[in-house]
């Protein structure tokens, strides 16, 4: 049984982020794997799970989610025992040491990724992204396509690797990197249903949990969407 926990969809679910859980659930179930998705609302205890998802959110809810997860410690314990975490946008920023709230103050994050999110004078990064996966152990994942929408810029520390190299778009905003990976914790600025546009990344996450390669699926519909988006390639 694959246990997926969606953390605080009531706080971190602004951009169709629920889609990622649905994609993982379908891709497991379509292969005959047993899977259960738990929606963990703000204030509920973080349960034991194999795969945790964090989505995007507005500034206020983002700070509240960080505070609740810090007190709960359940996600920290899960990372210690090797659970897989996939975080998007505001959820990505929460995993780092600090992030910046709308009033400009630095809010403490969970410290689960060695990254720091700062605010710069540059304008908000909004638009399509294409990025080549470079993180060790993840390079079999084909080119990432997605949409980003964030004000902060994220600096990577020595304890993480970039997930990908940006070909089109902004990403972390430094060194043309995008996202961050440390162990089984994976984070990206490609928000919302990024796993719908990147079935290779969805399957790589599932394979981490299952521990073995997965059977292929019929992804014809998704291939047409990917062709459409990859046409942005410079």
């Amino acid at each position, binding site marked *: 049984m694959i246990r997926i926990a969606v953390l605080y969809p*009531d*706080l971190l*679910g*602004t*951009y*169709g*982020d*629920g*889609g990622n859980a*649905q*994609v993982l659930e*379908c891709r497991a179930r379509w292969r005959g794997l047993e899977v259960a998705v738990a929606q963990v*609302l*703000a*204030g509920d205890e973080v349960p034991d799970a194999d795969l945790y998802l964090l989505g995007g959110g*507005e*500034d*206020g*809810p983002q700070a*509240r989610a960080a505070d609740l997860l810090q007190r709960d410690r359940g996600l920290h314990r899960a990372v210690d025992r090797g659970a897989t975490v996939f975080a998007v946008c505001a959820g990505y920023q929460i995993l780092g040491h600090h992030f910046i709230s709308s009033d400009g103050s630095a809010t403490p994050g969970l410290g689960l990724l060695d990254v720091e999110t700062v605010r710069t004078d540059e304008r908000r990064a*909004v*638009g*399509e992204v294409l990025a080549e996966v470079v993180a060790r152990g993840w390079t079999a994942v084909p080119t990432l396509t997605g*949409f980003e*929408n964030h004000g902060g810029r994220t600096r990577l520390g020595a304890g993480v690797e970039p997930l990908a190299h940006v070909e089109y778009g902004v990403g972390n905003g430094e060194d043309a990197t995008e996202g961050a990976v440390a162990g089984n914790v994976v984070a990206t600025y490609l*928000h*919302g*249903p990024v796993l*719908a*546009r990147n079935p290779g990344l969805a399957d790589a996450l599932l394979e981490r949990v299952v521990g073995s390669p997965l059977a292929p699926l019929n992804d014809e*519909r*998704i291939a*047409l*969407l990917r062709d*459409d988006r990859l046409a942005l390639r410079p």
Partner: protein
Amino acid sequence: MALTTRLRRRVAVWGMDLVNATSRVLRRGSGTVAGGHLALRIDPNLLRSLTEGADVALVSGTNGKTTTTALLTQALRTAREVATNDTGSNMTTGHVATAAHAAPNAVVVLEVDEAYLAKTAVWTTPRVVVLLNLSRDQLDRASEVRMVAEKWRTMCSTTTATVVANADDPLIVYAASAASSVVWVAAGSSWNLDAVGCPSCGGHIAFGDDGWACGHCAFRRPMPSVACRADDGDLEVALDGVLYRHPFSLPGAFNRGNAALALAAASILGAAPEQAIAALVEVKSVAGRYSHEVVDGRQVSLLLAKNPAGWSSLFEVVAGNGDPLVLSINARTADGADPSWLYDVPFEVLRGRTVVATGDRRHDLSVRLHYAEVDHAVDDDQRAAITRAATPGRPVTFIGNYTAFGALVAEVRG
């Protein structure tokens, strides 16, 4: 008014009309934007001076602005002359074009973009402000929905208007409860994902059959004084203790809510409710929405939905019939460039239906339907999609987002 002020206003309006007439002749847009820009550069205070002394009603919200403005206009015309921006120009340029040509005693009824409401209220000193609903919409370019609610709350705390507000939407109640005069309308809501967190204290709002309440503070649904319900296609509105009932052709619970809000606003502005409701039920289609057209020999019902709340409420409308569906998604500037919101729409309810995906972003929609496990076809042409969906003896329902809908209406109406 000083002579120079009047002169400036006259020059501004004259310039606006000239530019607008030219752009209409050249068929560039609806012909209110370019001239409005010019006029506002000549006289930045134009909207204030043009509406001075006039009765003004403002209508805003994420969904239903155009329809509610049309219903209110129709209701008010039973009692008074009305000037309204029915061209879809719901920002300041459109407002000055409307106000400049209002008859001396006309009520000026303005549909207002959410982001423009606060300043429009300062410039026009409205008598009535109608607040419909707030939910996520075009997050790649619009403000986050809670920031809009905060701005509206500040506007409500200073306005002298009577605010006619939807009691079923917590974000609207948060904004409107700051006003000194509020008429609460039970207008309904089919979307509460954006209001699960209490805007007042950050706690949890629980939604039940008899309303909603925060579990942590005193923030709860206010007791409405206007309510509506439907029965066999009739619109029933209870207003000031009287029940009004008329056959009503616009579909959906949300349109009955829009009608109730419009009726409440019309009665504040001097319309007799009995005449007003009889008039507003005559509205059968609004800027192409809810219209029935023949496209390449097929009967087609046209519906517009721009965001998750809009799509969800239309799915309630189509749930009852088995008509084939054509769904069309674009992501042009007016739609928002990011179709991530498709994953907030409950497409799962369409399982078992005939569905054809089309529009610029048909492949995004197709993947969404794939994960919703809805069998479907894909066609790159909207009209071909309608032909493909058609089943003998059944009308096709077309639902498009903003520019997709506009393109089809323009094509079938020539």
